[in-house]
């Protein structure tokens, strides 16, 4: 990977202080307590150092290929395309990665970074448990003890990921609430044990995490470029991805930020649609859009069914991309997501996680009536095993 920077490229990433954009418009930053500040600075330096080290990057790519099974296929969803009647729909099959979601790539990258930094213990937060189970797998593979934090609301929803993580040897601490509460709690645990490594699962929180996670996940977009050129001999017209914090979407978008002809569309859940309905604030380490009270004292409770996108805030780079108009953001409702889940299961034989179905809702809307050579790539960032119980309970009779 080249680290050379092109002037004015949107891919240049945040400045040294973790900001995307300038002045009042800057998003991101280090809004962190003093105990963690020196630790975060060390992490930033260690990351910059690691990505210049060819042997480190080679190791990351080696395990991406042989352990995660990357590149994930770019799959032509032929039946769905026919059914909708319009643009050609491709799925970037991140659900076929080892551990079943895009999360594992970031876990692999940061676990290797933690080892490089000689860290002895890993802390993670998780929403849908996809990050927890992926981190547990990577930490098992590389022999690091790991402790996860999840909200009780989510633990009830995604039991299979919790069982998997337990089998990999991870410990879990439950807190009241969901992903928001898990993040605040894990930041406290890290403050109490700053020698441990916090393996942040999304492109959120204080600098340098949004940049580190974006870097690791950008492999998704790089593969999309290569695969789309191979299959179609051109770039996609649009790339769609769901987002809570936004690691899957920034991973899919980043490679194309300077290809202005490629439309980038992110889809949140309806109640957690920070980019559509939120205001700029500063919480959980970053300045970004969020669903908050007017006086900034409360991060509002959001209630979207897919735990992985049920997050009141969003990664700062997405806020920046929204502000400058480089990416568009919208949202989908729980009902739309469940309908789309069924459609994808029945047309493509894919039992998808609920999160990426938010993105497919938008793909369906936008594909309709488009010319046949118009290409939409949608990141299918997770598989659905974790959601089966919830779907059965809510919609089981629909499938009979």
């Amino acid at each position, binding site marked *: 990977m080249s680290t050379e920077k092109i002037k004015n490229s949107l891919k240049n990433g945040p400045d040294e*202080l*973790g*900001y995307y954009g300038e002045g009042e418009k*800057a998003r991101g*930053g*280090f*809004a*962190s*307590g*003093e*105990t*963690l*500040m*020196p*630790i975060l600075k060390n992490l930033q330096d260690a990351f910059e150092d690691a990505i210049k080290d060819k042997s480190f990057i080679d190791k990351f790519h080696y395990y991406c290929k042989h352990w995660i099974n990357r590149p994930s296929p770019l799959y032509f969803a032929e039946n769905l395309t026919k059914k909708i009647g319009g643009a050609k729909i491709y799925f970037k099959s991140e659900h076929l990665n080892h551990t079943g979601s895009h999360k594992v790539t970031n876990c692999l990258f940061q676990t290797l970074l933690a080892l490089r930094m000689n860290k002895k213990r890993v802390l993670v937060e998780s929403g849908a448990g996809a990050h927890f189970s992926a981190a547990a797998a990577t930490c098992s593979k590389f022999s690091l003890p790991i402790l996860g934090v999840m909200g009780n609301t989510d633990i009830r929803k995604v039991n299979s990921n919790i069982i998997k993580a337990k089998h990999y040897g991870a410990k879990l601490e439950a807190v009241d609430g969901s992903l*928001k509460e898990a*993040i*605040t709690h894990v*930041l*406290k645990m890290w*403050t*109490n*044990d*700053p020698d441990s490594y916090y393996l942040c699962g999304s492109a959120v929180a204080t600098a340098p995490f949004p940049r580190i996670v974006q870097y690791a996940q950008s492999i998704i977009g790089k593969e999309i470029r290569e695969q789309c050129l191979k299959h179609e001999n051109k770039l996609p017209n649009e790339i769609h991805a769901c987002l809570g914090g936004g690691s899957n979407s920034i991973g899919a978008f980043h490679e194309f930020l300077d290809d202005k002809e490629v439309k980038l569309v992110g889809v949140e859940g309806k109640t957690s649609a920070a980019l559509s309905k939120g205001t700029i*604030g*500063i*919480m*959980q*380490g970053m*300045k970004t859009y969020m669903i*908050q009270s*007017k*006086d*900034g*004292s*409360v*991060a509002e409770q959001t209630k979207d069914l897919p735990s992985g996108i049920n997050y009141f805030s969003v990664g700062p780079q997405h806020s920046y991309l929204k502000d400058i108009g480089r990416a568009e953001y919208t949202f989908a409702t729980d009902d739309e997501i469940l309908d789309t889940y069924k459609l994808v299961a029945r047309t493509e034989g894919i039992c998808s996680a609920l999160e990426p179905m938010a993105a497919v809702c938008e793909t369906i809307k936008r594909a309709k009536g488009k010319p046949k050579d118009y290409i939409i790539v949608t990141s299918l960032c997770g598989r659905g095993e974790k959601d089966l119980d919830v779907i059965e309970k809510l919609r089981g009779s629909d499938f009979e």
Partner: protein
Amino acid sequence: MILSERLKKIFSAQKPKTKFVAYFVGCHPTYEKSLDIIKASIDNGTSIVEIGYSTSEASAEGPIIKAAQDRVIANKSSLKDVINLAKEVRDYNKDVGIILMGYISNLFMFPIPNFIEEIKKVDIDGVLVVDAPHELKEENTLRENLKKNDIAFIKLVAPTTPNERLKKICDMGSGYIYCLNYSGTTGVKSVDLSQVKKMVEKIKNYTNLPVCSGFGVKTPQNAKEIASTGVEGVIVGTAFVDYIEKNLDDTNLSKNLGKNIKEFTNILN
């Protein structure tokens, strides 16, 4: 270096030898009770009160202060209410130091220029923002505005803070330096005295500002031990917030907590 006249006077006084700094969650458990508690604290020898304003995602609070802040948020008490509370405290006593303490979220939304205007009117001595390191743009705005208005900006230093950074922070801070006794959230660990002593010595190499240390000071005996490290002030928070949470139904809550506080101020005299 700016140091509001009041804080200067407090730290230059011969007695008490080590100043007692009490932290309370503002409007906890209610606005009225909180005011009574702070008054009782002043009546029992507290030199400086740090009044906390609440944020749901506060990242440095242990479970006890978190529970208190959650209660305040559930009661819908805002930073505006905490500023009103501080005004009543100032009306009650002209000598006590008043510091507002909390997170950047509320200040950003207030927003910062209006916040400064309000607290200047109320005669607040200083502000401490837990998650606003000097790397953050809003910290720079806040620091500049506080300086212009001669309001102290209390900066935190932690055991993890390396020397060069420590020097920088000491240069940026005013009022006093808040020295964290351990790396962690409020009220969850015990204090390693020798570590605190080393840290206080280090801070004093870089600044003439008074040093107050906090986190993990649970008993008057703890406070006395901390005082022996050479700090000018000892900060206690969680122990009092815990007392309040456990005695919510006590009709003499402020009076009884006052007695408790007296034990701390007596031992520091």
